[in-house]
C-alpha cells in the first residue's frame, strides 16, 4: 500500500510521442483508472510505472521515494496483464508462488499464502492444473492471485478484462474491486471501457493524445466533463448550441437554445451572452410539460427502452423513452430537462 506520484512523464517512440507530460497522484489505497482510446498513452504510462519501459523524462515516486533507477524486479508492483501472462510450464500453484520464491520466502509460508490467495479467488481446487487447462476467466483469476500474493506496494492492471466475454467481465469487475478494497491496496487500472472505469474507480483519469484531459471521480467526469472529448468518451451524449442568458445561482445558468430556454449547470463564472455547448445525457431528458420543443425524428426498440432521435432546429439529440411510450414519427414533444444532468461545455467551434 503506497502513494504514487507521477510527474511530467514523457515518452516518444522514434519521434512519435506516446505520452506527453503525464502528471498523476494516486492516493494510498485508492483505485485510479486511466481511461482512453487505443494510442492515448494509457498503457505506456502503466508500463513506465512498472519499469518495462524507460520514460524520456519525468519522475515516478512511491511514498516520496524516486524509483526511476530500479528495474521491474525492484519496484514491488503486482502487474496483471491483458493476456494474463501466466507461465505455461508451471502449475497454478507454482505460478502464484513464483513471486514469493523470488523473494526467498520460506516454503511453509509460501504454501500458506498461496493457499490463502487461491481461496480468495476461488481456485484452491485447481492448484495442480497447468494454465492451459483453465478457462480465460480462471486464468485471469490466477493472474490476479499471483499479483496479490506478493503484497505489493500497488497493483497495476493493464486491460485485464479485455479478453473476457461480457458476462465474465461483469463478475470479474466485482471480484477485482472487492479484493482491492479488502487488501486496502493502491491500484492503477488501464482500460478503454468507460463503464468498467466508472464502476471500479475512485478516480478516473481520461487520457487524450498522451496527456490527462481530466482527472476526477466517475460522477465528475460523467456529469461535469471539462471538454467534449471527455463527455464523448464517458458515455452517450448529445449537444445543443446554447447562449447564456443569465446566471441564476453559483454555477447555474438560464441558457437559450434552438428549442427554448432551460436551466443548466456549468463551471462558475461564465459570462452572460457567451456561447457554449449544452451537454444532454439521454437519461436527463423526459417528455414533460415545459422544456425543449422537439420533434421525433426516429426511434428503435431495444427491449428495456426505445432509443429516440429528436430534432431541435437543425440539431439532433438522443434520448431514451420507456418501452411502452407510443409516439409517431414527426410528433412534437416537449422535453423536460433534469437540471442536474445538463452541463455547459466550452464550444470549441465557436469563435
Amino acid at each position, binding site marked *: 500500500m503506497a502513494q504514487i506520484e507521477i510527474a511530467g512523464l514523457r515518452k516518444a517512440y522514434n519521434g512519435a510521442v506516446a505520452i506527453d507530460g503525464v502528471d498523476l497522484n494516486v492516493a494510498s489505497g485508492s483505485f485510479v483508472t486511466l481511461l482512453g482510446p487505443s494510442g492515448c498513452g494509457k498503457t505506456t504510462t502503466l508500463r513506465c510505472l512498472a519499469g518495462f519501459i524507460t520514460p524520456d523524462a519525468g519522475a515516478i515516486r512511491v511514498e516520496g521515494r524516486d524509483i526511476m533507477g530500479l528495474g521491474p*524486479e525492484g519496484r514491488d508492483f503486482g*502487474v496483471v496483464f491483458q493476456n494474463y501472462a501466466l507461465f*505455461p510450464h508451471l502449475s497454478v500453484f507454482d505460478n502464484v508462488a*513464483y513471486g514469493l520464491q*523470488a523473494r526467498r520466502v520460506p516454503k511453509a509460508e509460501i504454501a500458506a499464502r498461496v493457499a490463502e490467495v487461491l481461496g480468495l479467488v476461488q481456485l484452491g481446487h485447481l492448484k495442480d492444473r497447468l494454465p492451459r487447462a483453465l478457462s480465460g476467466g480462471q486464468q485471469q483469476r490466477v493472474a490476479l492471485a499471483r499479483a496479490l500474493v506478493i503484497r505489493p506496494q500497488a497493483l497495476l492492471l493493464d486491460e485485464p478484462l479485455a479478453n473476457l466475454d461480457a458476462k465474465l467481465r461483469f463478475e470479474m469487475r466485482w471480484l477485482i474491486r472487492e479484493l482491492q478494497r479488502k487488501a486496502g491496496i493502491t491500484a492503477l487500472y488501464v482500460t478503454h471501457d468507460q463503464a468498467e472505469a466508472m464502476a471500479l474507480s475512485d478516480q478516473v483519469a481520461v487520457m487524450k493524445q498522451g496527456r490527462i484531459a481530466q482527472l476526477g471521480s466517475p460522477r465528475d467526469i460523467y456529469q461535469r466533463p471539462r471538454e467534449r472529448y471527455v463527455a464523448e468518451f464517458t458515455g452517450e451524449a448529445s449537444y445543443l448550441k446554447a447562449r447564456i442568458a443569465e446566471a441564476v445561482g453559483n454555477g447555474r445558468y438560464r441558457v437559450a437554445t434552438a428549442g427554448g430556454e432551460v436551466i443548466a449547470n456549468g463551471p462558475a463564472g461564465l459570462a452572460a451572452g457567451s456561447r457554449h455547448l449544452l451537454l444532454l445525457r439521454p437519461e436527463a431528458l423526459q417528455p414533460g410539460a415545459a422544456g425543449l420543443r422537439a420533434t421525433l425524428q426516429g426511434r428503435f426498440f431495444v427491449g428495456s427502452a426505445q432509443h429516440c432521435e429528436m430534432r431541435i432546429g437543425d440539431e439532433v439529440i438522443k434520448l431514451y423513452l420507456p418501452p411502452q411510450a407510443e409516439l409517431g414519427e414527426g410528433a412534437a414533444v416537449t422535453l423536460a430537462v433534469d437540471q442536474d444532468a445538463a452541463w455547459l461545455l466550452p464550444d470549441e467551434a465557436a469563435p
Partner: protein
Amino acid sequence: MTARPWRLAILGAPALFLLVVFFVLPYGEIVMMSFRTPSSSAPYGDGVTLANYARMFADGHYLGILAETVAVGASITAICLLISFPIALHLSNVGDRWHTLFYACVVSPLLVGVLVRNFGWMIILSFNGPINQILLALGLIDRPVRLLFTVEVVVLALVHVFIPFMVLPITTALRNIPPSLYEASRSLGAGRFATFWRVTLPLSFPGVQSGVILVFVLAISAYVTPVLLGGQFVVLMPTVIVQQLIAAFAWPFGAVLAMILTLSTLTCVLVFAFATRGLARRAAIGRTP
C-alpha cells in the same frame, strides 16, 4: 470440406511412393541382407544365418567403435548446444532489419559443399597451413604440429556445420515465448538471471529437444568429414561400415553394422525423448484455450 479417403490417398501418393522406393525397400534389403551368408560372387549368398550378428557381438573391436561413435556424437551435440544457445538467444532478439543477415550468417556453413568445406579445413590445419604459421610466429610452438587426423578436429568441423541445426529450432522456440512472460517474471521480483533460469530455459526446451535429436543423428552418421579429417586415426562406425561394404566386399556383415548403428541411434533418441517428455510437454506453448 470433409476429406474423402481417395482424395487423401491421391495427395499422399507421391510421398508414399518416395518413402517406399527410397526408404522402406532399401532398409528392408539391409535387414534381410544382415541375416544372409556372405558370397564372393554376389552381394550375399543364399543361406540364412545369425553368424554375422554373432561375429559383431563377439568382437569387442566393433562394440568399442560403436561406443566411441556414440561418445563423439554426444560430445558434438553437447558442444553444439553450448555454442548455439547464446546465438539463438541473440537471434530471437534482433529486430526484423538485421534478422535476415544474422540468419544468413548462422546457416553459412551449409552454403559450402561438404567436400569444399573439408578441403578448406585440411588447408587451414595442414603442416604449413595458416594455423601452424600463426602459432610459429607467436612463438607458441617451435615446429609445426599435427592438427589433422585427430578426433578433436573431426569434432570441431562437425560442430561447425551442425550449429545451424541446433540454432534454428532453439530460435524458433525462443521467439514463441511471449515477451509478457519476461515482464511478469521481472515484476514478480525475479532478476534477469532468475528469469532466464525459470522462464527462458524451460520454455526453450522444445527447441533444444529438436536440436539435440537432429544434431545427434547427423553427427553419428557423418561419413565424409571423419574420413577426410580423421583419416586412419579416427575410426567411427560409418567409416567401418563403408570399409566392409566397399573394401572388404562383406555386404552381410556391413549390413549388420549398419543395423546396429541405426538401432543404437534410435535407442539413444528414444531414451532422451522419454526422459525429457515431461519437460517438453509442459513447455509446449501456444495450445492455451
